[in-house]
């Protein structure tokens, strides 16, 4: 286990009302936090230098998360714990850092390692929730079109779903496959195709190759 390094990977949460800030807002917020912390952050070259921060996956506005991942690059080697302490002190409780580790040189950016994400979803209670989900899972494909400004995207919701489990009348657990080549399915789209009304969606973890990562060390089989 490398203790010091120039690249640190953090696991952090995005909860409370900060689930309403966009991915770009999050990037700006993290960049400002690094500057406040005075960590020796590395900047990009060029006309408009930006702090070298990379996220594993963009979280749609309105979805909270208990396990987001980001890498920061430094100009000198630091202990992961020290970086976490300094950076963490500059973040609100709703964006708290939970874990940190040094990323060994040569390891790809976090988004290249992501293979999926798991969610906990609370919906308006439905007595036939289990049947509905069973019927949905029994299908081979579930085509879905996403309207995006001028573009239309065609997705297969069923193919992107690794696991969908019912817990009671209003709780679901979902595991979605992500791929770097195709457009990723959003949990809201699964809920909409099930004709359910979502009350709360929380991303519980991001999955890498293998099994669940802590952070990003394990992944989906």
């Amino acid at each position: 286990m490398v203790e010091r390094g120039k690249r640190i990977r953090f696991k952090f949460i995005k909860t409370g009302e900060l689930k309403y800030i966009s991915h770009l807002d999050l990037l700006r917020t993290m960049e400002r936090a690094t500057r406040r912390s005075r960590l020796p952050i590395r900047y990009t070259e060029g006309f408009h230098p930006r702090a070298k921060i990379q996220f594993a996956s963009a979280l749609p506005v309105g979805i909270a998360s208990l396990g987001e991942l980001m890498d920061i690059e430094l100009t000198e080697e630091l202990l992961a714990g020290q970086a976490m302490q300094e950076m963490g002190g500059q973040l609100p409780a709703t964006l708290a850092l939970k874990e940190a580790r040094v990323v060994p040189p040569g390891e790809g950016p976090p988004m290249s390692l992501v293979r999926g994400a798991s969610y906990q979803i609370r919906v308006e209670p439905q007595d036939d929730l289990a049947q509905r989900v069973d019927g949905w899972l029994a299908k081979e494909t579930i085509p879905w079109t996403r309207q995006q400004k001028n573009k239309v995207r065609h997705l297969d919701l069923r193919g992107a779903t690794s696991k969908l489990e019912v817990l009671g009348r209003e709780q679901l657990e979902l595991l979605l496959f992500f791929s770097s080549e195709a457009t990723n399915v959003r949990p809201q789209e699964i809920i909409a195709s099930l004709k359910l009304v979502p009350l709360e969606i929380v991303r519980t973890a991001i999955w890498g190759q293998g099994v669940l990562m802590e952070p990003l060390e394990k992944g989906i089989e």
Partner: protein
Amino acid sequence: MYAEAAICGIILEKGPLSWRERILIDQKMWDAILSRVEKPARYIGGEWNQTPSEGDLAVCLAFPDVYEVGMSHLGLKILYQILSQKPGVAVERAFAPWLDMERELQAANLPLVSMESHRPLAEFQILGFTLQYELSYTNVLQMLSLGKVPLFTEERTEKHPLVIAGGPCAFNPEPLAPFLDAVVLGEGEDVICEIVDCYRKWQEDGFSRGELLMALAKIPGVYVPSLYNFTYRADGTIEAIQPTGGAPGTITKRVVEDLAGAPYPENWLVPYTEIVHDRVMLEIMRGCTRGCRFCQAGGIYRPLRERPQSELLDLAEKLVSSTGYDEISLASLSSSDYSKIAELTRALLAKYGEMGVGVSLPSLRTDKFAIELAQSIEKVRKTGLTFAPEAGSQRLRDVINKGVTEDDLLTTAHAAFSTGWRRLKLYFMIGLPTETDEDVQAIGELARKVLAIGREHAKRGKGGVELSLSVSTFVPKPQTPFQWEPQPLREEIRRRQKLLRDEMSKTRSIKLSLHEPEDSFLEAVLARGDRRLASAILAAWQAGCHFDSWSEQFSFRTWLEAFQKTGVDPAFYANRQRQETEILPWDHLKSGLKKSFLWQERLRAYRGELTADCRGGCRGCGVCPELGVANHLAGE
């Protein structure tokens, strides 16, 4: 704070549920609303550096526009900081919710609430609006209405908030007079605390609301419109403005004598979502000595006061450390005029350049020095430069006392292009007093000369040059030498715009953008209106007008219908030449500029005579003797 309550669970107080508790309890409803609106991040608050202020006297600073605009305003930040440090005061903020949020609030029967504690506006003791531009007036009514606060001062009782206003438009607040309890003239740093103290004493004494207004009227710089009677002549002009109940005959603006040591927002709030001015603003000075005759800010913010350089460096250090912003903007009306501007920028760049923190100058004079300064700042990133010659011909620039020659502009353009800039933007106005067709065409000629210089430089380097012209319509403003002048009729403005468009059609590579004359017309009506306009503003708002400064929301036809319905002739305010002896609606409100000085300046304008910068000697505007202050330069 709401964000914390959402995580930690809700603690209920005893007694009947207030709106605040209802909203907190109904997390589901609020959550559902936030998930439906277009930009939920503008409603969440809880910004970095935000610390809840506690006190039994709740003051809400209200900005009558959306969050991104309001949070970019320095004055709001300064007053917020001052009040947050005042014992016993809880200070919060409110902004105009965008149309989608309005609909959500109305559908759920929820009132407009503050950012911090989600307190409905009606439950504050003091509600303070800032009036930055005339086209935000209907938003004041909209916010009062959404906040369930009675619109008219005469409808409000001891139970309702005291509704006050300040900002540049306070120098003629008459169109809003029936809606405002009190108006603050000038800078709010000291007087806001005096108002709060006065309110507290009144509350303790248990007197009536009328007595509160009387007590407020005795504070220097505080104007209570309901204590003044206006009478009118048959021709519609004002016959007399009479104070009642012992209110003073005139009200003089308040100023901070010296910016050295004046309070500054060190707990700078850093929004999560992008705002208009998303950076550290360092106010390097206040006021302007140039004396451009169309400019209201240049007069009403006099005298000139520069903040000492050492203090600015201290503030920069605190603000960069506490915000993490990557840009420091050196804010003022004319930043390259700051005595020590070169030293200051050099020092800031030396200290923060390494951290990726840049420095920006929002207002540059048209001279070579400004380019050298800009050059020192933007060694790498040459984004674009903006200059404001305001008028195309030398004759007209002399009329407005701009003090910029064609040579200045061309030298500046040369310096800019030769040091690597490729994008230049020039600001002009159409409809200035004495303007002829030749003056309008001269805008095109001047622009072509600038373009030619740019092309010459571009030939030597790589890539082309971009030149754009932004041409607005002149709006005569109160407390300026042009306060008596008519704005040309809309048809005439359109004709001159067409003239310019034809002139520019010869040079299609220059981008020309023209402002709609209707917006400027309404601005001209409201800027110099009297209190008879209030009924038209009310009617326009009732017919759905608000967010008038947002072009997609602006409905000129609805405004015209409102004027017609209320029997107000807008041309009387926008397009009429006033006489020297006419009593103007703001004659009792003193910015320190003497009316006789303004009239003399008007005469000099018509003669094309320049009035020099008052750093070189007093020109007799009256501000320093009237207010008992003086220009303060950082070097002295």
